[in-house]
């Protein structure tokens, strides 16, 4: 009974989170531009979508920037986390405070300050500025996901590797990285998601050839949002959903296997 209520609660929250998305997905098949009045089923937005080079390009930009920014952020954030982990209390606190700023300051301020900054150092807006900005607000998520894994790490694991003849570089690769990998992966996924989700910062930092989807969507608001956008979002969403399901299924299979192995291990003398 209790369990039922718990599951019911989770269900309600997820209903809340997904209700608008379902609406959006349904109306990507609506035979009019209205996002609320149903005019019959059509797939024409999907058809048109694949003819709309601009929207496709902006999706490409979004994904490209997200991949690059997440990759850089993951690298930068991981080594930074390792460095910060080894710092004294004060330096650590200082780093983490600054690290927290992007997460706890408004997007608008960040976007504007980036714009001012890039103008000040004479950097033309384009992929570079976009990626720099994205890396900046993505990296903190990586740092914060990797730090706890480092804390969980056996203090001596790194030294054990050195002790066995590994150079610091090898120790990092063969011991530390595999150990903190779950944190890195979560961090990377979060960074990637944040990059995809961002609109304000991109808005201020994107160049002419590098307008991500969110900026394109926003510039449509003066006139009329085309349902093609709903269509592309639906596609994107379903792909990611499928991906996540695959990952999760694999994960739970691994978990079961490991559990089984452990039990078998415990029973042997």
């Amino acid at each position, binding site marked *: 009974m209790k369990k039922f209520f718990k599951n019911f609660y989770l269900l309600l929250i997820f209903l809340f989170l997904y209700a608008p998305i379902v609406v959006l997905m349904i109306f990507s098949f609506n035979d009019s531009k209205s996002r609320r009045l149903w005019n019959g089923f059509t797939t024409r937005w999907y058809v048109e979508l694949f003819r709309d080079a601009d929207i496709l390009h902006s999706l490409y930009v979004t994904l490209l920037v997200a991949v690059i920014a997440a990759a850089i952020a993951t690298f930068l954030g991981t080594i930074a986390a390792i460095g910060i982990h080894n710092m004294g209390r004060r330096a650590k606190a200082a780093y983490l405070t600054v690290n927290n700023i992007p997460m706890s300051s408004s997007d608008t301020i960040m976007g504007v300050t980036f714009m001012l900054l890039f103008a000040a150092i004479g950097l033309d807006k384009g992929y570079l500025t976009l990626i720099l900005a994205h890396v900046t607000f993505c990296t903190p998520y990586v740092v914060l996901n990797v730090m706890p894994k480092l804390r969980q790490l*056996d203090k001596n694991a790194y030294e054990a590797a050195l002790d066995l003849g590994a150079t610091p570089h090898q120790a990092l690769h063969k011991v530390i990285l595999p150990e903190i990998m779950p944190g890195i992966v979560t961090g990377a996924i979060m960074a990637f998601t944040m990059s995809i989700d961002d609109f304000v910062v991109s808005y201020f930092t994107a160049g002419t050839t590098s307008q991500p989807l969110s900026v394109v969507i926003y510039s449509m608001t003066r006139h009329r949002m085309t349902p093609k956008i709903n269509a592309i979002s639906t596609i994107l969403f379903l792909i990611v959903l499928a991906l996540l399901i695959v990952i999760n299924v694999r994960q739970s299979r691994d978990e079961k296997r490991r559990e089984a192995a452990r039990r078998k291990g415990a029973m042997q003398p």
Partner: protein
Amino acid sequence: MNQNLVDLQNLKKEFDGTPVLRGISLSIKRREFVTLLGPSGCGKTTTLRIIGGFEQPDSGDVFFDGKRLNDVPPYQREINTVFQRYALFPHLNVAENIAFGLHIKKLDRADIKRKTAEMLELVGLRGFENRDVTSLSGGQQQRVAIARALVCEPRVLLLDEPLGALDLKLRKDMQIELKRIQQRTGITFIYVTHDQEEALTMSDRVVVMNHGVIQQVGSPTDIYNEPVNAFVADFIGESNIIDGVMLEDCKVEFCGRTFECVDKGFEKNAPVDVVIRPEDLKIVYAGDGLLQGVVESIVFKGVHYEMMVRTQFFTFMVHSTMAESVGKTVGLSVIPFDIHIMHKSAEAQA
């Protein structure tokens, strides 16, 4: 100095302004099994870490086979370590853990396989190759850690309380196992523990430390039978430590009486620590002993009973295979040979 494999010369180390090592000098010979023994926080791990290269001494030198080692990074030292909580790599299985150092050295696959198999054999873990290390019991993990270090064929193996996390039974078994491995491989072991029985059982030489200072270095029997001060006496087995005054050579006064003893060379009327082991005190009839007291408590310890006997000046701990009833008045006797006279230790004076 030539036959010494490891030479520590006046190592000093502070952490945050607190001195942790106050000048450690120690020579360790080839094939020796040396144990660092001391209470928690006395600097054992720090000494080991300096030898391993994980910590730099503030001053003093580490020599290895006659060469100064201070600036050699850990991964270039022919020294391997078994860490206190094993520090196994959880993402690797048993065989991969053991083979780690060999992979680093880029040995060819066949060699790695062979050596790993040999090691598994040595530590009695054949058949465990593909097991997840996290699924092993404490003792098994311990053995993997040892195998992982030994397979690199170090000239010195450092072991930091390797048995600390194991239960008593298993600890005893592993003590024997470790000693056997040391004898078979002929590798120099530097071993850290705070368990004096472990130290006595396994070592060729024991180094007793306290507060970053070496108190005594010697064979287990030396240390046990001739502790240089009350700290060592008390730390190595339980002791009755009584304040006394050395009246003259072979004559010491304590508990309001004068006793004969075998120690000489103290100043006249020097205050000293008198150390008597509980098992050296004999319970005799009330009138017979030099001292007289009342049995205050008695506890069964298996091999013997432990009794607390209160005399006028001091409550003695006495070990005896015979039980006395609580409240009984008994006499205590001790032979002069078992009365150990010691200078007041720095510890006690401070």
